[in-house]
């Protein structure tokens, strides 16, 4: 029998809540973390809103040795991994080092660190560039730093597929569990709310330029006008089910039951997006029929064309209004690689509590035949949830999580 991968710990950093309980309470209450950028002066830029994490005191949460060598996204990742381990009741130093690996995703690496060092190079010269620039900007650095800090010498990797990467990393962790690794840390933290990161994001053409925090990010709304970027994400402790049972893990949130990834056809080909195929294959992989899914966490790109593709894929598989759909990322902004792991965490907490978090501020456009959970959470038994994530350039990933058995 194939080894089953279950989630036993959650570490969360988001703009509407730092830590699992704070995030979940804010999300159920519909509290948004989106506001005007404070990390730099956004006045000269066309987009000025973001889901910034405030009150994250890295110097109180991490040893001083790690501060000069880490970008903000890596600090989120190291602290998120610490919290996930604590939640799972695991002290990594007590486990065999080759029994633990790390699989993260990254959108762009450590942009803010890189910006500061490029600035030093340009304005003062090469001798002013930090030696830690050699790795601190690198998109694989979160996996590396988590593995070093926690003494994890099992298989470690990074995937880069924009927003879809968050699911692809967790799928990679499941592969390692199936190959016999007892425990993986998986997920993603992203952050690039600095001028250099900001102009790179604006260049994609999908960022909302609205200045009203409650009207800026409106997936499936007739006024959809792009998305608001955010920072943060989630890291999950993924364990082989028997390993979790034998050590009497404090909780099993659920199982990574199904996954699929597809790629869109080239633009202009006239062929359909690969999103529906990803959903169908993930359901097949989980051996769950469409009517066995109790909620869909949408990718929620918030551009009319991409919303239509997603609504059509969901309706095609589940039927019009056939399944509750939600997008709590309307409260955090899109977190790039961090988004889907955060949605997985929310899906697992929905399973735990029997409640579906809301999508905020959206007035559902008539053309989308989906049952969008809006404004207030919906109480409902959740046995299985589907999480969708799409990456810029045609990546589609779908993952099914189901209640622990």
């Amino acid at each position, binding site marked *: 029998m194939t080894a089953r991968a279950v989630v036993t710990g959650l570490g969360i950093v988001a703009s509407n809540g730092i830590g699992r309980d704070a995030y979940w309470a804010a999300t159920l209450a519909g509290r948004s973390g989106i506001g005007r950028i404070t990390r730099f002066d956004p006045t000269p830029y066309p987009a000025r809103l973001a889901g910034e994490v405030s009150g994250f005191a890295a110097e109180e949460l991490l*040893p*001083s*040795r*790690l*501060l*000069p*060598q880490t970008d903000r996204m890596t600090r989120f990742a190291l602290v998120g991994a610490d919290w996930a381990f604590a939640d799972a009741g695991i002290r990594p130093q007590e486990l065999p080092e080759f029994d633990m690996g790390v699989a993260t995703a990254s959108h762009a690496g450590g942009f803010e660190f890189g910006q500061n060092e490029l600035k030093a190079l340009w304005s003062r010269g090469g*001798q*002013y560039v*930090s*030696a*830690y620039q*050699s790795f601190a900007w690198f998109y694989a650095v979160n996996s590396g730093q988590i593995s070093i800090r926690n003494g994890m010498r099992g298989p470690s990797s990074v995937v880069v597929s924009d927003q879809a990467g968050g699911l692809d990393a967790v799928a990679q962790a499941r592969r390692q569990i199936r190959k016999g690794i007892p425990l993986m840390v998986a997920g993603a933290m992203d952050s690039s709310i600095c001028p250099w990161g900001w102009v790179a994001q604006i260049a994609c053409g999908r960022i909302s330029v609205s200045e009203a925090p409650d009207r800026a990010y409106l997936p499936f709304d007739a006024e959809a006008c792009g998305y608001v970027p955010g920072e943060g994400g989630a890291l999950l402790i993924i364990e082989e089910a028997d390993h979790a049972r034998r050590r009497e893990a404090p909780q099993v949130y659920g199982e990574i039951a199904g996954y699929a990834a597809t790629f869109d056809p080239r633009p202009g080909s006239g062929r359909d997006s690969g999103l529906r195929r990803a959903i169908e294959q993930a359901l097949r992989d989980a051996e769950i029929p469409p009517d066995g899914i109790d909620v869909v966490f949408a990718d929620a790109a918030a551009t009319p064309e991409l919303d239509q593709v997603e609504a059509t894929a969901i309706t095609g598989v589940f039927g019009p209004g056939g399944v509750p759909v939600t997008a709590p990322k309307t409260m955090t902004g899109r977190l790039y690689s961090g988004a889907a792991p955060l949605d997985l965490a929310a899906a697992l907490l929905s399973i735990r509590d029997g409640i579906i978090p809301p999508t905020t501020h959206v007035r559902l456009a008539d053309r989308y035949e989906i049952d969008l959970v809006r404004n207030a959470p919906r109480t409902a038994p959740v046995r299985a949830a589907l999480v969708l994530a799409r990456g810029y350039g045609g990546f589609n990933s779908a993952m099914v999580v189901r209640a622990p058995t």
Partner: protein
Amino acid sequence: MSTAQTGSFTDDDLRRILREGAGSDESVDLDGDILDSTFEELGYDSLALLETGSRIEREYQITLEDDAVSGVRTPRELIDLVQQRLAARPS
């Protein structure tokens, strides 16, 4: 704080630069008697040493070859190296 102007380099200068450039290990008392501990024992790897050397070069306007810095094992050896370079500096 800096003694760059006076042309000397003390153990307190090294402590300050280590903290600024690489932080300090929680299990180590950097203010204690560290002169003959190895950098490894103090929690500093080769990259931390490289960053420290680079900061000393900037502040004291001397040149420390990468080989010379990576060959240094203890704070005392690094201080000696810096003082040699300072002494050799044209006045």
